């Protein structure tokens, strides 16, 4: 993985001082190589870089020593400055932390227990479903799976409208264009490809493929901005990028994550030009799309952040992580304001989404369930079963009537809340009424457990 460091040859060292420095430096780098093997990470160390400088550049020994000292001094100075800034930031944030969200929401009526029901099951993928997205017409869904297939469904009728086979496997990201005329997808091929959809079902979609984004590692998430013309992508190489669809040109890139970026979400407002991204470095960063700057950064999760989603008003966002918690961060208070977790939940969250009003937070978990949280009170209001493998993706429809979940059990399920009007109950015959009551009794027992 990494080329072995050349040992310091005795003939190249000009003086004893230089020799000592290079040997000390080399031993330190060897140590880092051992670390590398153990933890399986790249570690660009200060000493590693300086080894190369000393072996290839060989400045006079006196100047070299002072240069090294100067660099060390400024590095130490910068380190102390960064530490002090970090503590100052924490202090500033803590000053405004006067109350918790659930305390403010004490007077709000509780939601009681919810019943959700699966309305449609979309079967047709041959392998794990990795990602899905709704179309703005609230009826079409695009989903991608591990076998390279990207399918466009009509959720009302469960018909497949289009199917494309990508040349790569593990298509981890897919998105529907706002106009409904194209889909974007990508994965292990490090690229994001846009396929224009046509009404003609027999047309070969793969022929019209347009390669838009190029990353140096896998594509983890993609999303169209407010128009069909720009795509935002995030990748395993630690960067996010904004691309122009027509020309395939890179418009802006966003650097700041120290590890793979796993998810991103655009701010909901029309004029908003910020987005949030979450990564394996446990950080969630909020970026300004025009300048490429990271405006805010939140690091309270204990493990990789798998999913981030903006609150419908745009003032907050939720994140779901492998540490089995979902957290709500407020952008104007610049801190985490709520944690949604339970002792009994030990499996990571793969995806989160809000309902239309923002009162409910849906989380798809790796233990095959979907937990529904009351955002204001911090309690769980419902738990859904049904999937036979981990839930990998979850999105609420644009008008908030239903939500769709994709899972490693090769299916997608569209669910909505189950409510029955009193009129329809009264009009049922006694036997049917009795079986309904028994059914609900057992259902509620399961939820309470």
């Amino acid at each position: 993985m990494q080329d072995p460091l050349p040992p310091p040859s005795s003939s190249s060292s000009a003086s004893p001082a230089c020799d000592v420095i290079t040997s000390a430096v080399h031993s330190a780098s060897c140590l880092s190589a051992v670390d590398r093997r153990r933890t399986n990470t790249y570690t660009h160390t200060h000493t590693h870089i300086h080894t190369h400088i000393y072996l290839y550049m060989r400045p006079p020994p006196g100047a070299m020593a002072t240069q090294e000292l100067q660099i060390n001094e400024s590095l130490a100075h910068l380190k102390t400055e960064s530490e002090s800034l970090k503590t100052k930031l924490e202090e500033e944030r803590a000053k405004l932390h006067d109350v918790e969200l659930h305390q403010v929401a004490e007077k709000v009526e509780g939601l009681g227990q919810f019943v959700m029901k699966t309305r449609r099951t979309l079967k047709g993928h041959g392998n794990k479903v990795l990602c899905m997205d709704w179309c703005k017409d609230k009826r079409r869904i695009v989903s991608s799976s591990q076998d390279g297939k990207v399918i466009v469904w009509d959720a009302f009728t469960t018909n497949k409208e289009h199917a494309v086979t990508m040349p790569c496997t593990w298509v981890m990201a897919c998105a529907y264009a706002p106009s409904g005329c194209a889909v974007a997808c990508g994965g292990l091929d490090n690229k994001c490809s846009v396929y224009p959809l046509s009404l003609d079902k027999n047309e070969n979609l793969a022929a019209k493929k347009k390669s838009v984004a190029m990353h140096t590692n896998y594509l983890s998430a993609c999303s169209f901005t407010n128009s069909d013309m720009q795509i935002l992508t995030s990748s395993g190489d630690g960067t996010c990028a904004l691309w122009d669809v027509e020309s395939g040109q890179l418009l802006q890139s966003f650097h700041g994550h120290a590890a793979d970026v796993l998810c991103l979400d655009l701010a909901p407002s029309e004029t908003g030009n910020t987005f949030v991204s979450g990564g394996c470095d446990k950080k969630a960063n909020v970026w300004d799309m025009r300048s490429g700057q990271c405006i805010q950064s939140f690091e309270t999760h204990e493990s990789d952040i798998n999913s981030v989603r903006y609150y419908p008003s745009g003032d907050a966002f939720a994140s779901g992580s492998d540490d089995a918690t979902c957290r709500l961060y407020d952008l104007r208070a610049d801190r985490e304001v709520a944690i949604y977790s339970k002792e009994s939940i030990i499996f990571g969250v793969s995806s989160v989404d809000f309902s239309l009003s923002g009162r409910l937070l849906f989380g798809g978990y790796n233990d095959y369930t979907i937990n529904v949280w009351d955002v204001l009170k911090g309690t769980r209001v419902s738990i859904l079963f049904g999937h036979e493998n981990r839930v990998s993706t979850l999105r609420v429809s644009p008008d908030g009537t239903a939500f769709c979940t994709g899972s490693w059990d090769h299916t997608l399920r569209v669910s909505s809340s189950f409510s029955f009007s009193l009129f329809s109950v009264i009009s049922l015959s006694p036997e049917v009424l009795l079986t309904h009551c028994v059914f609900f009794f057992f259902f509620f027992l399961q939820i309470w457990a």
Partner: protein
Amino acid sequence: KIIYTHAPVHKEGRHWCKKGHCRVKTEYNIYIKRLTVTTMTSNSNLSTMRRLVEQLKLEASVERIKVSQAATELQQYCLQNAGKDALLVGVPTGSNPFREPRSCAVV
């Protein structure tokens, strides 16, 4: 606290996969995220340190409001839009687009 990355697999006994111990790719638990780990802890590099300090200065200068105010506004938004939220209040079965299709008999 133990963090599990993989869900239990119900095949000839249980296979619990704890993070850090599972390097073997099993046929049903290949999790793509860990295939390419590129953690770069470049804290000691001078230019990255400078950038970090600049970034921290920028973040420290952000305008903040009190949590109580932010929480009240979140709550207000929730309550204002609660009526429109179909997943929250439910819709009458007649207008739910995802209800089971009922067959009509033409007399």
